[in-house]
């Protein structure tokens, strides 16, 4: 017996009697003996208190970011988490329900997703957004695959800026050969942006997609208008990747410049960093591409009595109907995380998001200014390049060593870039958000001083 199994021993006996069976084993007669075991070699059941203690022990063996000032970014950001977000997420009607295939009893989930889709459209400047994807990296892969399909498979090359997150680029590499796609990577230039001339040269009539990230991996903002034009001239689709979704509170989304797709990671919108997952991929594109859109989509309609009602739509793109010809093999999206983002954005408000984004900019600029005045081998790598809330910091030794010594001083100062190679110097990516107070900035500067 167990609290999470509904039938006790007497209940089971009663049911077996009704079925005319001697034991439960009789129901498993079709299993060959050679695949069966008497018992799996795992420990016995534990009471809640013991399980909790074990899990708390594992949690305590980690250094959580909140333990001290933290400036970690590089694709996963630490923003405010208003209490309402978790309160709504904890409602069983939201988290214990299934995909809304029966719209009559899922209007809650469906309306939330419709609101999410609308919010993503406004932030990206595009016409249609899906119900979410696994994460930013797979969202980018889906954009590339979509571009390939839209151009009927006639063009096999993808031009990818090196300033797109290295982890995203690795993930694309893992998918590319299966998809018959060749990836051409255009290096970062001396200003921490993609080299625009080399991007122009790389985009030919064999290119199906030009993919950039803004702000880029090094924190520098890209000239989206010029990049959209490069893609257009080559007859390729343009894809903007965004890893720091809060930037869209201050910066125009690629849709405003004619980008075909804006996609990426919306973890910044109320989703916990969670050691890498679950996160929240988002995907928006122009209306003309809607038939090739991957993932689930919620549409508006009416019910038999004329009431407004929402339902999943264009399901024929998806695997359960198209099977081998599906636009992608995604089944599950990240429904609960999309709910988190929707609550977060609606709680903070449209104007509130702009203010929050502006705080990010102000705090990052403040830290950059203080570093500029430090000397001692510390400098911002690209002082003349515009950034949002993240920048590359160079110091007296390697990024990894600096991170380690600063951590010993109680500051999680940034993510070392060396692991990723690339056309940039070895340093630390420093992210500054609304959670980094002036006291945090003081601690950062003081720690740099002690480590010099």
């Amino acid at each position: 017996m167990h609290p999470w199994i509904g039938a006790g021993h007497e209940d089971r006996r009663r049911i077996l009697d009704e079925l005319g069976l001697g034991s439960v084993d009789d129901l498993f007669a079709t299993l060959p003996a050679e695949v069966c075991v008497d018992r799996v070699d795992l420990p016995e059941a534990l009471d809640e208190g013991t399980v909790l203690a074990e899990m708390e022990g594992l949690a305590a063996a980690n250094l959580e970011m909140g333990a001290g000032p933290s400036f970690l970014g590089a694709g996963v950001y630490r923003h405010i988490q208003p209490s309402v977000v978790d309160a709504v997420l904890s409602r069983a009607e939201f988290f214990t329900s299934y995909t809304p295939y029966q719209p009559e009893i899922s209007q809650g989930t469906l309306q939330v997703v419709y609101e999410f889709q609308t919010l993503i459209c406004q932030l990206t400047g595009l016409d249609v957004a899906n119900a979410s994807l696994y994460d930013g990296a797979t969202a980018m892969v889906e954009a590339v695959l979509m571009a390939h399909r839209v151009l009927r498979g006639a063009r096999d090359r993808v031009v990818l800026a090196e300033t797109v997150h290295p982890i995203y680029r690795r993930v694309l590499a893992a998918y590319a050969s299966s998809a018959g796609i060749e990836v051409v990577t255009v290096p970062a230039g001396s200003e921490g942006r993609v080299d625009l001339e080399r991007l122009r040269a790389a985009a030919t009539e064999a290119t199906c997609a030009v993919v950039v990230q803004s702000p880029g991996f090094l924190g520098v903002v890209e000239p989206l208008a010029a990049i959209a034009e490069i893609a257009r001239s080559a007859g390729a689709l343009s894809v903007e990747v965004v890893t720091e979704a809060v930037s869209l509170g201050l910066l125009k989304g690629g849709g405003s410049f004619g980008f075909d797709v804006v996609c990426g990671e919306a973890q910044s919108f109320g989703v916990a960093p969670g050691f890498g997952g679950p996160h929240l991929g988002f995907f928006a594109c122009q209306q003309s591409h809607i038939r090739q859109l991957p993932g689930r989509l919620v549409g508006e309609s009416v019910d038999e009595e004329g009431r407004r009602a929402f339902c999943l739509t264009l399901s024929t793109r998806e695997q359960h109907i198209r099977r081998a010809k599906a636009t992608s093999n995604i089944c599950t999206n990240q429904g609960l995380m999309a709910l988190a983002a929707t609550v977060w954005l609606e709680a903070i408000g449209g104007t509130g998001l702009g203010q929050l984004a502006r705080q990010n900019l102000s705090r990052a600029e403040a830290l950059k200014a203080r570093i500029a005045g430090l000397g001692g081998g510390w400098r911002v790598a690209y002082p003349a390049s515009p950034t949002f809330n993240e920048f590359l910091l160079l110091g007296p030794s390697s990024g990894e060593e600096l991170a380690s010594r600063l951590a010993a001083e109680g500051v999680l100062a940034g993510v070392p870039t060396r692991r990723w190679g690339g056309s940039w110097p070895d340093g630390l990516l420093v992210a500054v958000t609304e959670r980094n107070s002036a006291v945090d900035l003081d601690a950062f500067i003081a720690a740099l001083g002690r480590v010099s």
Partner: protein
Amino acid sequence: MRRRALREEPLIFERNQLRTLRQGVLLPSLDVADIEPTAVLPPDLVRDDVPLWPDLGELEVVQHFHRLSQLNYAVDEGLYPLGSCTMKYNPRINERTARLTGFADLHPLQPDDQVQGALALMWELEEALKTLTGMAGVTLQPAAGAHGELAGILMIRRALEERGERREVVLVPDSAHGTNPATAAFAGYRAVEMPSGPEGTVGLDTLDRMMTDEVAAIMLTVPNTLGVFEHRIVQIAELVHRRGGYLYMDGANLNAFVGRALPGRMGADAMHINLHKTFSTPHGGGGPGAGPVAVSEALLPHLPVPRVERTDDGRFRMLWDDPSSIGALRGYFGNFLVLVRALTYIRAMGADGLRAMSDVAVLYANLVRHRLRKAYHLKFDAPSLHEVVFDDNRQAVRDVHNTDIAKRLLDYGFHPPTMSFPLIVHGALMIEPTESAPPEEVEAFCDAMLSIAREAEENPELVKTAPHTTPVRRVDEVRAARQLKTRWTPD
């Protein structure tokens, strides 16, 4: 039946139409110089539009989502017998452990020495899943079952490449879930459909004929989507291996035999496990899930990176590069906070609990089968494990179809079963009760189904016009597709 007035809840964009400024969330006070964006950023990149959505007070936001939540049915409300979805109880303790800040507030790029607890947790979950499947290795990276399928098929493809072979075909039974052929196609294979035998299982003769040296793998769901166990699985695996192919097992139906049988002994080379099905992590209204994949020795070298390794001194590290690996199929290591829930569940259930879980899941499905047989048609007579597939043949003579039956069930306060899948059963009703509910709940579901069968006989119009008591009636899905409206726009 809801006996309380439910107000229709507008879209958030329809609230505060005058867009008066209300305080949403109080931001941290700005203790540095306020920077004008156009002073440091190219002005053409800076937003100059009016936000589409309003600023509302906290209670207004809470009420918005509270009212929306009340429009949803959920596992916490009643039986959710969706076949192949395993809608079991989501234990509350999982929600506590997943929210521990020592897990939730960790950055994936923190150095190994700062995250030993997280790495240990992943290691322990991998070991537990290896034990439960009897297989050699596990990847925790895939975000969902379909994602796991892709990982499995790509590992198989890599193994074949290492052998210097290029095979073009993957065999998929006609009863398979759509993700199977979609995954095969995505991975560059041609998915060839294998007809099911008269019992709904794979015939060895059919397999013998179709298993050529062109075939890289066969994808099997065990038990299959009819809830029937492939009793010849060992011979199937042997035949596939003899001809140089691999066996991919879709683990969606693992709840049928976990704790009792080992896929490793069945000959599986790769099998995905849906943590949001078998291991109780919540469905969340459409995710997040997690789809770890267990693999045989043959595929071990090709597991995705990054992955956890144990060092000689008993500590853990994250391995980021491995030339034999298929690489990374998503950012980072997996849906970590979902993994936390699954390990919590496994520890709480224990070996005997996990076995009892499948025992009762199968017992309940057979109770449903026994009680509904007199009223509903059962196409395949073979024994059912954890799910049973009826169809609407008897009701169809009165022009009542599975959709109508499903909609009428909503009036009785139950979620309908899975419908119209598998494709080989026309008008299917795939029922999977799971082990969580008390017997009275499963019996009440049976009573409701029998009542609807009677209504289909005596008063078919009542069933055909259902549901009558839900927040909305049947939704015009044709209109949703013909007149696409996927976002709100100001008029």
